[in-house]
Structures are given as structure tokens and as C-alpha cells.
């Protein structure tokens, strides 16, 4: 009967409403976390600015001509990609963007006959590249939403180790840069060797501050301890950017999911009302036609067969109930 369809629709609406509540909650959570993540990005800026300054000062003093982390190796035979993705899904195109950018680069390398290693951060990228059979060197996961410096240090240690052992000749970072809550972009940044403009001190410090530093111990030794810290700071900044971007993507994805749920509820409600109206109309039709059949039947029977109309009433009733109305008896 028609009421069945209505019940099914009611059930679907309820389930969409429940989903909507969840996506709404996720949206709000993500929105509040963007702010926090953004503040952490800001808070990390002074350290990375100053450590960059120090590297520049050292480079200006002539240190680091021989440091492989700075000057790199002439020929690049193998590249290590550090791909920063999320641990969880439900964040729109966030993971796909990073994965696609990295995969494109890797394909170019492979076509050019060059080797690659993958260091993935976050479960999603790991799953993606494992499924497609790429060489995965290492995975760091479980902190994509809330990275700490310790995790950056671990990743840094690993990639610096890869580079220093000669296993790879350069390291690239692939992550999503957080520009504002409304815009993020996937970027590919060289991590090791460090960018040349940094090393050469291209945008030199304003006059008066630079030059003529006293070093203790000598510049080379300082640089040796400093460069791994610098790499870590860069990774940390990338992790924080990625975390903020992840929240922004998730917020947007959940907002559109909530909007879609709302729309779906609206259209389902419309279909349900329609179905209910239809079933009411059908019922009325049935009742009316039943009553009519009954009325005319009675009238003729009254006229012709006075004594025994119970049998006819019964058959009329049977006719009405076979038409599917429960209310025939209420008449």
C-alpha cells in the first residue's frame, strides 16, 4: 500500500538528518581547529625566521662551502619525496591534491630514468602509494592534525640520514601550504640541499646588523649542528601548514556535506508529502467509490429484495476491503 513508501521516506529523512548532525559537528570542530592551527603556524614563524637569519649569517661568513646539506651534489640520481597528507579522510580534495602532485613528479623522474624514495606522512598517502606499488621508504603517521616538533625532528633525522648516507641526492617536500582559511595550495619545495637564495644570503640583512660576527665555536662547527635544526624547522613549518590546511579542507568538505544533506532532506520531504497526499487521495477515492457502490447497492436492494440485504452488504464490504481501505467500516 502507499503508506509503505511514506514510511521508507521517513526513515531515509531520519538517517540523512542524523548524518547531517554529524557533518555539522565535524564542520564546527574543524572550524575551531583552523584558528588554533593558524595560531600555531604563526607561533612557529619567529623561530624559523631567526634560524634562517643565522644560516644566512654563517653563509655570509663563508662557512658551509663544503657542507653537502647546503651545496648538494652535482648530479641528482635519486630524489626523496616527503609527502605530507592527512591520517583521516572526509576532507575533500586535500589528500588527493598532494598525492597527485607527488605522483606526477615521480612519474617524470621514472620516465627520466631517475630513482625515487617516498617518505610519507599521514596514513592516507601511505595507503595510496602502497596500493599503487610505489617504493615506500618510511611512513610517519598518527599526528597529522596536531603535529609537534618532536615528530618533525624524527622526520628530519630520517631524511637527513637518507641524504648523508648518499642514498638520495635531494629531498623535496610536498605539502599543502596554508594561505588563508579560504585558500590553500599544494606546493613542492626543495628541502635538502637548502634553497640557494637562503645560502647565498641573497636578500641580505639590513646594513649595520650584518657581517663581522664573532663565532663560537668556529662557523663550520656551528653550521654542522645548525643545519639539521634548520631542516627540522622547515619540516615543522610544513607540518603545521599542512595541519591547518587539512582543517580548512575538512571544514569546507563538511560544510558542503551539511548543505547537501539539507537539500536532500528538503527534496525527500517533498517526495514524502507527495506520497502521503497521494495515498490520502487514493483512500478518499476508494472510500467514496466504496460508499457509492454500497449506497446504490442498498437502494436497489431495498427496492427489490426487502427481506435479505445482509448478504449483499457483506459482498459490498468485501469489495471495499479488497480495494484496500481500512476505513470502510467507519462509514
Amino acid at each position, binding site marked *: 500500500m502507499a503508506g509503505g513508501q511514506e514510511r521508507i521516506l521517513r526513515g531515509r529523512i531520519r538517517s540523512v538528518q542524523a548524518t547531517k548532525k554529524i557533518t555539522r559537528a565535524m564542520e564546527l570542530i574543524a572550524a575551531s581547529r583552523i584558528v588554533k592551527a593558524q595560531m*600555531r603556524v604563526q*607561533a*612557529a614563524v*619567529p*623561530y*624559523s625566521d*631567526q*634560524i634562517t*637569519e*643565522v644560516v644566512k*649569517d*654563517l653563509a655570509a661568513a663563508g662557512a658551509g662551502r663544503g657542507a653537502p646539506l647546503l651545496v648538494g651534489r652535482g648530479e641528482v640520481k635519486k630524489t626523496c619525496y616527503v609527502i605530507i597528507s592527512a591520517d583521516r579522510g572526509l576532507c575533500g580534495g586535500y589528500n588527493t591534491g598532494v598525492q597527485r602532485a607527488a605522483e606526477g613528479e615521480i612519474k617524470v623522474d621514472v620516465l627520466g630514468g631517475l630513482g625515487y624514495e617516498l617518505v610519507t606522512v599521514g596514513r592516507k598517502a601511505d595507503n595510496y602509494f602502497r596500493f599503487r606499488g610505489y617504493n615506500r621508504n618510511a611512513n610517519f603517521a598518527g599526528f597529522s592534525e596536531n603535529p*609537534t*616538533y618532536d615528530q*618533525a*625532528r624524527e622526520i628530519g633525522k630520517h631524511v637527513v640520514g637518507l641524504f648523508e648516507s648518499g642514498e638520495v641526492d635531494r629531498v623535496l617536500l610536498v605539502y599543502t601550504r596554508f594561505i588563508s582559511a579560504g585558500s590553500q595550495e599544494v606546493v613542492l619545495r626543495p628541502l635538502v640541499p637548502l634553497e640557494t637564495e637562503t645560502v647565498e644570503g641573497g636578500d641580505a640583512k639590513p646594513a*649595520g*646588523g*650584518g*657581517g*663581522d*660576527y*664573532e*663565532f*663560537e*665555536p668556529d*662557523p663550520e*662547527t*656551528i653550521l654542522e*649542528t*645548525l643545519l639539521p*635544526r634548520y631542516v*627540522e*624547522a622547515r619540516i*615543522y613549518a610544513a607540518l603545521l601548514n599542512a595541519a591547518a590546511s587539512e582543517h580548512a579542507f575538512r571544514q569546507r568538505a563538511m560544510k558542503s556535506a551539511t548543505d547537501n544533506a539539507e537539500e536532500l532532506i528538503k527534496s525527500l520531504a517533498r517526495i514524502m508529502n507527495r506520497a502521503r497526499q497521494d495515498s490520502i487521495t487514493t483512500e478518499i477515492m476508494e472510500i467514496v467509490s466504496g460508499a457509492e457502490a454500497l449506497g446504490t447497492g442498498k437502494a436497489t436492494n431495498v427496492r427489490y429484495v426487502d427481506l435479505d440485504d445482509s448478504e449483499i452488504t457483506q459482498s459490498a464490504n468485501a469489495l471495499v476491503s479488497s480495494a484496500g481501505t481500512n476505513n470502510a467500516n467507519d462509514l
Partner: protein
Amino acid sequence: MTVSVVSPEKILFTGESTQVITRTLASGEIAFLPGHAPFLGALTECHTRIYMADGSIVDVAVHGGFVEVSNNKVNILSDVAELAEQIDRPRAVRAKEAAEEHLKREHDAEVAASLSRAHARLNATGGVTGTSAGAH
């Protein structure tokens, strides 16, 4: 002069100071007074003291890092640095004792590092008192 202690996660401390004492990797403690020549040094685990303009002293346990002095500004960059009020002293005492116990049996670079961290913490919170003081 302006002194700031910066960790990767945040600026731990910033303020006007008259003197800063810290310890470099190679040659021990060094003090900076206002107007110090540009200086760049790698730091070791140490108890850094910042003498404030109002006469108070800010104690910081710095676990490695760098110090940069220029333009009458002292920047201390450290992966891990703790202000004295953030340090859990009883925990540091326990860590020190455990590390010393361990080092009596065998030498282990990691434990030695944890001992020097504990020393830096204890020094920043009133000195290494009691058992085997002055091991630093």
C-alpha cells in the same frame, strides 16, 4: 637590550634585560651586556640566566640551541628550553638519580644526555643540591 628565548613552537620569553649568561658548546659560560659585538654561538645544555632591567632574574633551562647577538638584541634559539617555573623539579631530581645510577653501571650517550638535561633543569630551579652535587 632585548632578549628573547624562542623555541620552534613559540616565543618562550621576551623582555628588556641588562645581562644574559649562557654557555656555549666550546668555551663555557659567556655573558652578554648591552652593546655586545655581533656574536653567534652554539649552546650546550645549560642554565641560562637573564638579568632583567628591574633586578629580577629569569632562569631558563636551555637544552642545546644557538645564540645570536646583533643590534643590541639577544636571540636564544632552542629546540627545547624551559622557564624555571615550568620545570617539574621533583621529576628532574628523579631523572638525575636514575641517570646517575645507570651511568655507574655502563656508559650510554643517551643517559648521559638525560643527566645533563636534568642538571640544567635543577640548576635553573635553585641548583643541584644534595647527592653528588657539582657533577656537571
